[in-house]
């Protein structure tokens, strides 16, 4: 579905992503792990067109999308949510989602008809329901709880009906209970929406609990990739990242 080959991005002297080659198969739920500053967010920024790589290739569904604009990549079906929830604070939840749905339907330059056009309201509500945001539909998004703002950010990405969704630390800044709440929603989305989902996560219980495959980034390089079991047994990962192995862990 998504093939990354020899991807490299430097910021001045710092190699944020160095010669990364990775595959993401259709329909998988992949976790990306790695210490802070490993280049995980940069990796998402490269895929989604926020920044242009110095070298390497990004192929999505057989098409080379390297260097395309953010809007062009969105149109090809890659949606995303951000490490710091990103939405439109002066609008309510419903307005946020209506705006996203209208944008997805290519109406964003429409000067002819009133907003929202036929069906946009209904579709926005559907998306809100997928993430349990429908009860807050008329709340000003700036006033939402932190967790709901993260959900809204994901919902905006989802409004684009993407085939691939990139979630940058969906549980960032949440307490343990809220975390699992979020992750259950993410997992349900992945199942019901037939998505290829990639998420960045620090909580190892979550990662090993739900991911069908894992990629470990460290200092801009791929340290390891594989199934949770393979990662757990990987000596390089254990040494650099996981600490002492825990043979009794059967999650």
């Amino acid at each position: 579905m998504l093939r990354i080959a020899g991807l490299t991005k430097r910021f001045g002297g710092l190699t944020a992503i160095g010669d990364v080659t990775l595959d993401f198969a259709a329909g998988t739920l992949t976790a990306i792990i790695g210490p802070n500053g490993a280049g995980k967010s940069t990796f998402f920024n490269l895929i989604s067109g926020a920044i242009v790589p110095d070298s390497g290739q990004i192929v999505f569904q057989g098409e080379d999308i390297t260097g395309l604009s953010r809007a062009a990549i969105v149109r090809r079906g890659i949606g995303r949510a951000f490490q710091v929830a990103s939405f439109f604070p002066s609008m309510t939840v419903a307005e946020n989602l209506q705006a996203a749905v209208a944008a997805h339907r290519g109406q964003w330059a429409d000067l002819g008809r009133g907003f929202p056009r036929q069906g946009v309201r209904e579709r926005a509500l559907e998306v809100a329901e997928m993430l349990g945001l429908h009860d807050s539909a008329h709340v000003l998004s700036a006033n939402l709880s932190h967790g709901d703002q993260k959900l809204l950010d994901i919902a905006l990405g989802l409004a684009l009906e993407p085939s691939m969704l990139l979630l940058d630390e969906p549980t960032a800044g949440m307490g343990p209970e809220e975390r699992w709440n979020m992750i259950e929603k993410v997992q349900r989305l992945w199942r019901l929406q037939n998505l290829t989902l990639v998420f960045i996560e620090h909580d190892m219980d979550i990662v090993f609990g739900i991911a069908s495959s894992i990629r470990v980034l460290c200092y801009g390089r791929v340290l390891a990739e594989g199934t949770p079991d393979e990662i757990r047994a990987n000596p390089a990962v254990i040494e650099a990242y996981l600490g002492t192995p825990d043979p009794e862990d059967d999650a």
Partner: protein
Amino acid sequence: MASGMVRTRIWRDILAGCLLVAVLAIVPALIPARAFQDFVIRCSSMALFATSLNLLVGYTGLSSFGHGMFFGLGTYSFALLMQRTGVALPVAFLLTLLITAVTAVAVGAICIRLRLIYFAFVTLAMQMLLHSVVISWVGLTGGDQGLMGGIPRRSVLGVDLGLQYNLYVFSAVVLVAGLLLMRHIVNTAFGTSLRMIRDNEVRAAFLGIVVWRVKLTVFVLSAVFASVGGMVMSLFVSGAYPELINWPISGDAIFAIVMGGIGSFLGPAVGTMILLLLNDVVTRQTEYYGLALGLIILAFALGLRRGVLDFITERLGGRPAGGIS
């Protein structure tokens, strides 16, 4: 269902606009003061201008300090076309819109990519440039003196705009039409794109919006409406003067927006009324016009912390239309 509500909203606006024109048309029969009509004409011109600027400032978050260049361009293009060519008034009107739009595409293409303070200063610099061209190209523009000699052939569909009352009603009609059109723009999906860009440009881009296209389009649209305001002013002053294209005129529009309310569609129009009233009253009382105005604006900014109309809307429990938080 949704589109039904939208349609009701449009008809309500149109009705309100027609009512305003009708009331204004009757007023001179009751209050025959010429000063009132002058006031309304100037108000129409400046209100169109200020509202057009708010499309950029309030709705899109683009703070232009040089928007007056398009207002001034409207006055000069229109006056020159009327004086130097034989075209009828409506043709000069349309040609002026075209000239403004083309200029705005060029200026916008340069400015739109700049952020915040750079956008503000480059637009200001552009206006200063245009102003100095007007001052120095004496052969075409009359330089410091402005374009003298009046506006000939002032008739639209057989109505003579040389008559004060006719120009007065005409300016009210143009104001209402302009406001309705701008109101429509902010209520479309394009208008929503403006707010998205203002709130969070990065998020907007990641939802597939081509940000520069939206910005350039709104820049050109707002320039065109400013130019319409300029044309009304040109008819009022029977020509064009360098003050109408100089940078303080941009400041007037910004004052009007700040005083009336950046977050309400009609805020800038209300602000224009307040500004012109203050202007007329204060200049009669004191020569320290600038000082008095400065103090009043400070009082608004520090006391109310928002424009008059924003203040009222919030008091009534609503959210300002522009939705600035």
